């Protein structure tokens, strides 16, 4: 593998920016590694089949586990008889909910599920028993021998019906007597004079919108392996995005000393939020391993992945938006019902996010939202890429398009006029620092030839624009504590190699590569000399997980922190050798070099050896925690707070066949302010993957369930990758990435998130493009041929028939 150059292009040199917490370097004229187009550290492992995912792990004596799932959407468990299954030769253990009767939930305030149901099932697919057998065939045969007696209960499939219920049995016991147990959370927050702003507006646009549920569908199904050893140690390998939270919950629910629990996270084959909380299989493999003394593996079937869900909530939304005749927003008012499914999951946060994340990139003088999350007897919804803010963004950006239309203002110009600016606070008191939204608008306007196309293309063709913002990590962890959100440890050996111990979760986004680039930048070490050990709670410091677009910002800053500690020691030791000042020692290109005298140099290995001789074994930890002054003090003010916000604008171009209602998205131009692109290849990959996923939700995907008169209530409509239609190569539009760098003052080298923000505008940009093409407003997702066809007919716009 010699001669595999890792870099392809020189970096973009940016203007200096202020120092963040271990962040951007104000004096640096040029970055050596950061900003180049580079390979990923695990790229070839993944391109050669050598990367070992959880199901690729085979342990000696391993048993196969399976979970028995409820056929009813809502029922009491009257009795479970496992005796026949236990008697089947080859079956080693059977567990039911009574073996693990401790509730859990990713949000500590809403623990409402058991590893296996104890006395009630709440959706078709809820787990009721699990077993371990010598092989998969025996496990499947044994499931059929478990007898469960159910007493069916009325099922709530519609969130409005659930909210209107006045008597039990509710889906969950009310937290206080007399309350409706079908409601997870109600949030109502108001800022400024909402009604006054609407009354003073020259134009008030009102609209009802529906965002259908969608799910993540990573190509790797969830998989976990449990191993219990006689000395009390419990190890769980899992395809999870949150090894730290899983570690805590396994210890608590199974009543094992957390110091004896080890969670190992192998490479994860896609997640998108769908693996960001504990799942039944992780508790079951652990429990079954503890009972049998044998390793136990459970691999979900694809159908089980659809039922485990935790994907995008269906949202029913009503918006009123006021504007002056110049197009300036005066007030925004939203009423939202969230269809949460059977359990809380992240729902408390989702309910806040449904309103809190709408307040940029446009200035709103007044804003109110009233959001209610209902339980329903369907698989629980949770966080999917762009958690809780993709749905309101769809509705709001269509509202803006309607305002622009009514006032005869170009939609991009309307958005420019309302730009909130940088270094400001939103109406709900979130701190905004760097903001490259205007540059995003400029970039998509230019690249798409917007001025030549908008309103100018023939009937059936159109372009649409939308903008958005997203958090770069949540300011607070899901359980309250003052410890760092992200930690890392570096260790230098005598060969010149640097080992990185990272608690972060590599789920394909490239975090292991990101820390490698940073170590190379700070210490001058070739990328090939850096090794990453990640995602093992026995050996790596805590990082809270791969969620809320937090990892580059938080772990990146932690990594800079650690690397600079080592750098200082190396500079000191070499300076002593050379009789110069530490700051005159530069570490770059595999060498220590004296500033201003490139003839004085030594290989980095020797420099590291000098430092080790002076200070002892060379290593350092680094950590990052968020600033605490970035939000208001009202109840809920912390939710939506982030150390930095990314900004995005999309233009989509579509062709609509008015005869069939079939929409073809020709191309999406994606401009995204990621602060700084540490490796543009990875940033483009996130932007394109996000836009693809938004496109998929706009036109194709529906996580929907049958009603009683469609067969069986609560049954998934299409739990397969054929029928739940995720886009193939032939469906997916051309995608063009336009990276905007605003150089965030606190991000690592100025970086912000890129993994979730660029999904948001795809959907409203496509909706607005459909309007430009055929003059109908698509207010409900997905924009499937029947829906578009009916809308065209209802508007009397069709030219045929």
């Amino acid at each position: 593998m010699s001669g595999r150059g890792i870099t392809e292009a020189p970096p973009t040199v940016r203007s200096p920016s202020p120092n963040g917490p271990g962040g951007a370097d104000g004096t640096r004229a040029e970055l050596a590694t950061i900003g180049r187009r580079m390979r990923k550290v695990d790229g070839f492992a993944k391109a050669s089949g050598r990367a070992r995912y959880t199901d690729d792990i085979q342990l000696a004596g391993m048993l196969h586990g399976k979970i028995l799932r409820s056929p009813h959407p809502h029922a009491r468990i009257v009795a479970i008889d496992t005796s026949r299954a236990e008697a089947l030769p080859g079956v080693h253990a059977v567990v039911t909910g009574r073996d693990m009767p401790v509730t859990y939930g990713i949000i500590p305030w809403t623990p409402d599920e058991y590893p296996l149901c104890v006395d009630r099932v709440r959706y078709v697919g809820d787990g009721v028993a699990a077993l371990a057998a010598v092989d998969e065939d025996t496990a499947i045969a044994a499931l059929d021998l478990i007898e469960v007696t159910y007493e069916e209960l009325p099922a709530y499939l519609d969130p409005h019906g659930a909210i209107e219920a006045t008597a039990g049995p509710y889906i969950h016991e009310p937290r206080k007597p007399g309350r409706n147990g079908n409601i997870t959370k109600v949030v109502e927050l108001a800022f400024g004079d909402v009604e006054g702003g609407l009354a003073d507006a020259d134009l008030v646009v009102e609209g009802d919108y529906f965002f259908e549920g969608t799910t993540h569908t990573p190509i790797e199904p969830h998989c976990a392996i449990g191993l219990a050893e006689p000395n009390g140690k419990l190890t769980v390998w899992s395809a999870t995005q949150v090894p730290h939270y899983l570690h805590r919950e396994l210890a608590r629910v199974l009543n094992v000393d957390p110091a004896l629990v080890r969670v190992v996270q192998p490479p994860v084959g896609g997640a998108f939020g769908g693996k960001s909380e504990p799942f039944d299989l992780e508790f079951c493999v652990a429990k079954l391993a503890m009972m049998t003394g044998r390793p136990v593996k459970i691999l979900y079937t694809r159908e089980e992945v659809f039922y485990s869900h935790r994907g995008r909530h269906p949202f029913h939304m009503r918006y009123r938006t006021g504007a002056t005749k110049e197009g300036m927003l005066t007030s925004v008012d939203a009423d939202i019902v969230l269809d949460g499914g059977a359990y809380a999951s992240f729902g408390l946060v989702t309910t806040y996010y449904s309103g809190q994340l709408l307040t940029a990139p446009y200035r709103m003088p007044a804003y109110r939202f009233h959001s209610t999350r209902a339980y329903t007897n369907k698989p629980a919804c949770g966080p999917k890429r762009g958690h809780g803010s993709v749905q309101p963004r769809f509705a709001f950006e269509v509202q803006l398009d309607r305002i622009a239309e009514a006032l005869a203002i170009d939609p991009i110009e309307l958005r420019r006029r309302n730009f909130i600016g940088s270094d400001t606070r939103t109406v709900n008191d979130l701190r905004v620092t760097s903001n490259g939204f205007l540059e995003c608008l400029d970039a998509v306007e230019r690249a798409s030839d917007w001025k030549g196309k908008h309103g100018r293309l023939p009937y059936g063709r159109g372009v649409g624009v939308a903008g958005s913002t997203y958090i770069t990590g949540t300011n607070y962890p899901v359980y309250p504590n003052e410890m760092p959100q992200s930690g890392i440890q570096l260790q230098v050996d005598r060969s010149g190699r640097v080992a990185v111990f990272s608690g972060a979760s590599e789920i394909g986004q490239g975090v292991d590569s990101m820390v490698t680039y940073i170590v190379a930048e700070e210490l001058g070490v070739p990328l090939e000399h850096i090794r990453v050990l990640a995602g093992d709670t026995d050996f790596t410091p805590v990082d809270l997980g791969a969620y809320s677009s937090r990892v580059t910002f938080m772990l990146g800053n932690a990594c800079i922190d650690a690397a600079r500690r080592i750098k200082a020691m190396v500079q000191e030791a070499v300076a002593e050798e050379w009789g110069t000042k530490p700051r005159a020692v530069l570490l770059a290109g595999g060498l220590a070099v004296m500033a201003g005298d490139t003839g004085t140099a030594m290989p980095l290995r020797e420099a590291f050896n000098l430092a080790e001789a002076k200070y002892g074994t060379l290593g350092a930890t680094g950590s990052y925690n968020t600033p605490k002054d970035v939000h208001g003090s009202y109840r809920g003010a912390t939710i939506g707070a982030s150390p930095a916000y990314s900004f995005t604008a999309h233009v989509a171009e579509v062709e609509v066949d008015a005869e069939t209602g079939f929409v073809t998205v020709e191309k999406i131009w994606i401009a995204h302010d990621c602060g700084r692109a540490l490796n543009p290849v990875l940033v483009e990959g996130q932007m394109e993957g996000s836009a693809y996923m938004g496109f998929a939700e706009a036109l194709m995907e529906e996580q929907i369930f049958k009603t009683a008169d469609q067969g069986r209530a609560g049954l998934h409509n299409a739990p397969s990758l054929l029928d739940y239609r995720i886009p193939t190569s032939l469906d997916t539009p051309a995608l063009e990435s336009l990276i905007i760098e605003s150089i965030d003052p606190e991000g690592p080298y100025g970086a912000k998130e890129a993994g979730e923000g660029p999904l948001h505008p795809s959907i409203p940009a496509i909706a607005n493009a459909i309007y430009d093409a055929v003059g109908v407003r698509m207010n409900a997702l997905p924009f499937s041929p029947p829906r578009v066809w009916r809308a065209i007919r209802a508007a009397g716009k069709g030219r045929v028939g």
Partner: protein
Amino acid sequence: MEVVRLRVNGDQRVCGVPSHYTLLETLRYGLGLTGSKQGCDKGDCGACTVIVDGRAVLSCITPVWEAEGKDVRTVEGLASGTEPHPVQDEFDLNGAAQCGFCTPGILCSSVALLDRNTAPTREEIRTALAGNLCRCTGYEKIYDAVEAAAERLGG
């Protein structure tokens, strides 16, 4: 348990498997070739794609017996010695693998394409990969990688 004889990546292999085993199960659990992935259990996602007698085949819906006497090539067999196949190298260079789970199947579909068409258009690449779902990339970087590999193979 029955004995199956397969030629995989140039090696003659013998393996005992349950009679209902698919080619994918045999590769993964019988022969330890875990590069080929199971994403859907029923031929919908393409993560299990391998090359059988030069054609891209869904190994998860191929009974193992159908592969007897044929030449099976998996992701583990794409490189020549220490030299990666140009498609593998270009996937790495172009960031065409994010989570990497669909990658082995897409590589096999790509190699099967390039073996019969050394200069495919972007449209031909799109069509050849229509049976492989990728959930991470939006496909653009995959096309870039296959195009670049074709150029290298042609040059």
